């Protein structure tokens, strides 16, 4: 497992060296495009629409589209001038009660592990967050973006949640038919409640599996059948090799 980010968390006068690891495994089954005829990998080439020429990385600038065929161009130099302050350090701005943060703002999760020399401060922060039932909020610079993140004690360690900024989450009332209220009678409501309670039981998330992925996996497994290295035969070969070596030593002694 490789860390995706290395830096520090700081609050007040304390700075804790940390590493971040992805908390989730995504894209388990990923496919590549191959040429049907010869099995060669298909690659994308960056081609300019105007002149038809292939362009290299150095020849590319980024354009912000205002309207069709109308762009504001930003160069690498422009980006370098941008103030991405929180690059190697997450500065915790405040602590708060977890119930104040609505689940809709959560995006990705990362596990935080203490880097060399940070074990003690890490442990202290974790315990203190747990005991005070608090979370911290701050910013982190990752992949050229300034992300909002929250830190929380979780399952023996600390977890970092990437958050959506306040203005990134849509107001649901912009969605058609959101929040409609209609007349219902008491019996109908009672019946619905009864149905829910009848189906209510402790959640076992592990019971819900990605059956499509499992089927795909089986399909792939069937396709490689017969191509496997037969381990029993290999072990036999390795052993007879050793036996032959030993026998040749014995014949020498005899």
């Amino acid at each position, binding site marked *: *497992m490789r860390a995706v980010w290395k830096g520090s968390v700081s609050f007040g006068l304390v700075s804790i060296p940390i590493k971040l690891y992805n908390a989730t*495994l995504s894209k*388990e*089954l990923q496919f590549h495009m191959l040429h049907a005829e010869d099995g060669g*990998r298909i690659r994308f080439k960056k081609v300019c629409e105007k002149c038809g020429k292939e362009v290299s990385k150095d020849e590319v600038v980024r354009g912000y589209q205002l309207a069709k065929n109308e762009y504001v161009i930003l160069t690498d130099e422009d980006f370098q001038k941008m103030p991405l302050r929180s690059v190697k350090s997450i500065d915790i701005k405040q602590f708060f009660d977890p119930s104040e943060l609505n689940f809709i703002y959560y995006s990705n999760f990362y596990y935080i592990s203490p880097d060399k020399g940070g074990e003690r401060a890490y442990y202290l922060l974790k315990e203190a967050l747990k005991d005070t039932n608090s979370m911290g909020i701050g910013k982190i610079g990752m992949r050229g973006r300034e992300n909002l993140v929250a830190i929380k004690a979780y399952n023996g360690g600390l977890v970092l949640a990437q958050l959506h900024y306040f203005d990134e989450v849509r107001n649901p009332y912009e969605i058609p038919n959101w929040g409609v209220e209609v007349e219902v009678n008491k019996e109908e409501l009672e019946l619905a409640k009864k149905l829910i309670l009848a189906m209510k039981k402790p959640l076992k998330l592990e019971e819900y599996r990605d059956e499509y*992925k499992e089927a795909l*996996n089986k399909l*792939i*497994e069937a396709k*490689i059948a017969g*191509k*496997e*290295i037969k*381990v*029993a035969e*290999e*072990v*036999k*070969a*390795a*052993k*007879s*090799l*050793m036996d*032959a*070596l*030993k026998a*040749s*030593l014995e014949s*020498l*002694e005899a």
Partner: protein
Amino acid sequence: MTDWFYKKIYPMLAVKGEPFSDENFIYEIKWDGTRCLAYVDVENGRIRLQNRRLIDITYRYPELDFLNAVEQNVILDGEIVVLKEGKPSFRLLQKREHVVSKTKISLLSKLYPAVLFAFDVLYDGEWLLDHPLIERKKILSEVVQETNHVLLADYVKKEGEVFYNKVTEVGLEGIIAKKVDSRYEAGKRSENWIKIKKRNTVDCTIVGWLEGEGRREGYFGSLVLALKDNNNFVHIGQVGTGFDDEFVKSFYNELRKVEIDKKPKGLEKEEFKRKIHWVKPIYVCEVEFLEITKDGKLRAPVFLRLRDDKSVEECTVEQLRLI
């Protein structure tokens, strides 16, 4: 008590040497793969595999069925290899490394199944580190019931030179001589274990790459190699053979991700005939070579494999002084 299960143990390491015969030594085949300490807790049905850097590699080899091989709690020391025609294949073992997806691991464990050759036992309910090797070997053969994936590394007594010749004749790497009465010196490169290899190899850090041409156009032509001398890197040459096209392409993409502008410390004055791309010194590879030239470079280097079980700090110039 489950302390033993999480106890971090650095494996005992061998020094390099020449073939010899001595009745105070036993001789094993040097199975070249990934070193592994296997913690098997039969009571709780759990296994923990750790490489020589103490990094957990349990998830990588689900096919290693230790719970079928032992009936009591043990810590085994051994080498994980993927066999092809009865011999270890670096190329196939490499396919098993750097894989995170569970699905892929499960498929690869069927396509290229790994085996572990156990050559030592460090715990069997009691700590055995201070027991003489020959006693540990006896215990090992008693506690391990071989399966298709967990095997015992056999050994011969006394006849080191003949054994070495025979072993290298059939195309294996070499042998390891171990002193019969030696204790297990965890984390130490000990004179009591002597590896005797046919080929010169060195583990070095990849510090950059030179652009390729012809078939390798648009990829790397060769990898720039360096060793650590205290805090500085020392350049020891380039390796441009030993990898297949598939590896070149996939590894090129990895190298691109870690390109840097700054030259690694100690290499500021190096000049190259082709354009060099420096990379973060994080990848370690094993390279075979004929000899060291007068100016301290590898002659006729051939790439053998990437080694994620070795750290950059371990790739020191000391390795060459022993040759």
